[in-house]
């Protein structure tokens, strides 16, 4: 399959090409937004056309009997294992966001009419492991997560690959965070050059008084873009943190929209970006405060360190505000390591190379340390240091 064949096609043509039945509304949404290209705002800094204009093998998503394990394991888009007592099943998604900004969100739903549903009952810690084993393939799947009111869930999302090449992964979540509940999602992804590329398109709706924490740790090479839409109800809160460490000639990052719909909703979005080699980082983030969202508090900040003269960070924090009764701030800085801090470390006998490493790790740690569980905090620190030291030997 070559996704570029969907370019500039009308609803009927797309329906025929994707063999969709009774899903005209979705097809219309997809065609109205169009297949992303380099002028599409959210994909502007990402070489999406190259990824879409490739012939991929399409996979058969045959459900397997789910083995008992301490984590949910999804292999090439198929659930193979899950913890006992957790409801994980395939079902048609009834609750698709019809106002998502990303056309690939709709394409994902069109390609995966049945989504992997995870119903988390009660308070829980859940780990999801995504494994990719197929080369030259289009791996497409979607996951829908629901929790219960007044319950607290923490999810850890990790990735593993075999020695694969030239695969494109399209996946994403539809998350429904119930009233008075909390969901924390900590995502760690280390990618290596030329293994696979990934576009994830998420939608998170946060009900009244609920809170969602989304921490994304993105390390290494290759191409990946995360598109995230969060909608906040009354007194709802989102705390989104994105740590990027990119090397080689990778292009990775986040394009997001956080939409305040309810009164007294709050958002905090912090991005820390460390760019090495000829990498390009992307942080294209919009916070929109609608008329209904009086007394909103919104904070957005992006800080970037460029370790190489050819590295580039596209940082674009934006506020779109329709009311006066709110507190909002946003900012973006891009620069080198702080010379005063470097000198201080050197003046204590620490070599400049080591001092640079210490400061980069310190910059990353300020976000990693917001992960409350110390075991996972250490795991993320180790993953970061491993990738960073691999490209800064000596």
């Amino acid at each position, binding site marked *: 399959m070559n996704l570029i064949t969907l370019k500039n096609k009308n609803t009927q043509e797309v329906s025929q090409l994707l063999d969709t039945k009774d899903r005209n509304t979705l097809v219309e949404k997809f065609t109205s937004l169009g297949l992303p290209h380099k002028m599409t705002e959210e994909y502007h800094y990402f070489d999406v056309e190259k990824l879409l204009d490739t012939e991929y093998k399409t996979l058969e998503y045959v459900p397997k009997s789910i083995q008992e394990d301490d984590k949910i394991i999804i292999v090439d888009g198929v659930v193979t294992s899950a913890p006992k007592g957790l409801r994980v099943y395939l079902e048609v998604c009834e609750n698709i966001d019809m106002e998502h900004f990303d056309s690939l969100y709709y394409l994902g739903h069109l390609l995966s009419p049945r989504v992997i549903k995870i119903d988390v009952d009660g308070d829980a810690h859940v780990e999801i492991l995504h494994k990719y084993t197929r080369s030259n393939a289009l791996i497409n799947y979607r996951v829908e997560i629901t929790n219960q009111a007044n319950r607290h869930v923490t999810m850890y999302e990790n990735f593993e690959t075999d020695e694969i090449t030239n695969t494109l992964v399209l996946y994403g979540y539809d998350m429904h965070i119930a009233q008075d509940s909390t969901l924390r999602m900590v995502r760690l992804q280390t990618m290596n050059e030329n293994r696979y590329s990934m576009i994830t398109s998420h939608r998170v709706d946060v009900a009244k008084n609920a809170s969602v924490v989304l921490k994304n740790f993105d390390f290494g090479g290759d191409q990946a873009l995360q598109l995230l839409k969060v909608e906040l109800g009354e007194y709802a809160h989102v705390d989104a943190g994105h740590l990027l460490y990119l090397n080689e000639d990778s292009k990775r990052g986040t394009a997001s929209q956080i939409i305040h719909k309810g009164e007294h909703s709050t958002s905090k979005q912090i991005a820390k970006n460390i760019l090495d080699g000829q990498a390009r980082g992307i942080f294209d983030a919009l916070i929109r405060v609608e008329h209904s969202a009086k007394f909103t508090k919104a904070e957005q900040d992006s800080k970037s360190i460029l370790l190489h003269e050819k590295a580039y960070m596209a940082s674009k924090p934006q506020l779109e505000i329709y009311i006066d009764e709110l507190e909002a701030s946003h900012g973006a800085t891009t620069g080198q390591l702080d010379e005063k801090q470097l000198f201080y470390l*050197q003046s204590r006998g620490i070599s400049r190379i080591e001092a640079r490493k210490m*400061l980069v790790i310190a910059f990353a740690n300020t976000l990693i340390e917001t992960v409350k569980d110390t075991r996972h905090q250490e795991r993320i620190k180790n993953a970061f240091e491993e990738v960073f030291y691999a490209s800064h030997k000596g």
Partner: protein
Amino acid sequence: MSTVMKIENIEANIGDKKILKGLNLELEPGKVHAIMGPNGAGKSTLSKTIVGHYDVEVTGGDITYKGKSIVDMEPEERALEGIFLSFQHPVEIPGVNNAYFLRTALNAKRKHEGKEELNAAEFLREMKKHLEMLGMKSDMISRSLNEGFSGGEKKRNEILQMLILEPEVIILDEIDSGLDIDALRQVSEGINKMKDGKRTFLVITHYSRILDYIEPDYIHVLKDGKVIKTAGPELVPYLEEHGYDGIKED
């Protein structure tokens, strides 16, 4: 007089401005040398020049330490050789754990001296005794380096580093600024503990208050980028009475 450090006719700029204008100074091993002078005399530039600060461009003269020129050395090389600057305004480094930083610095020095590196447990044992003496809470070493520290805590942390790294030439740049009496006494106690007749101190100060706690052997008056007078501690009361304008050049 034997010398551990000799500053000969040093000239240095910060940006386009010439600050040190042919400064001469010899430091005698094991002695406390106080550098006093009015604002803008070049006191802090002198300390920056000795440690190789990136702000400073040396345009003439030489600094020799134990007979070896150091002006072309990197800052970390000077530190490893035993030169230590206690900063007037220590920087905050969020995310760098204080204990990790101190151990990294100590192990860099031990490695330079051909000694085995200390593991975390050995290091903590070594540090505990210093913390108590400086009146530092043990949680200060688990916090980020200088982040959120009060002025007094930052200065204590500077002295803690000095005690751990055991340098041979110690430059204290306005160590008393921002310290209350109790903190000043504790900091001075830490400094005096290092006075063993071998280590050399260069105490840079605007006010004489610190010299009540750290007794100097020599007073050097710095004015307009040059040392204009060197005398014994008896110069301090004279300076208090007459100010720097009353000093005649040697």
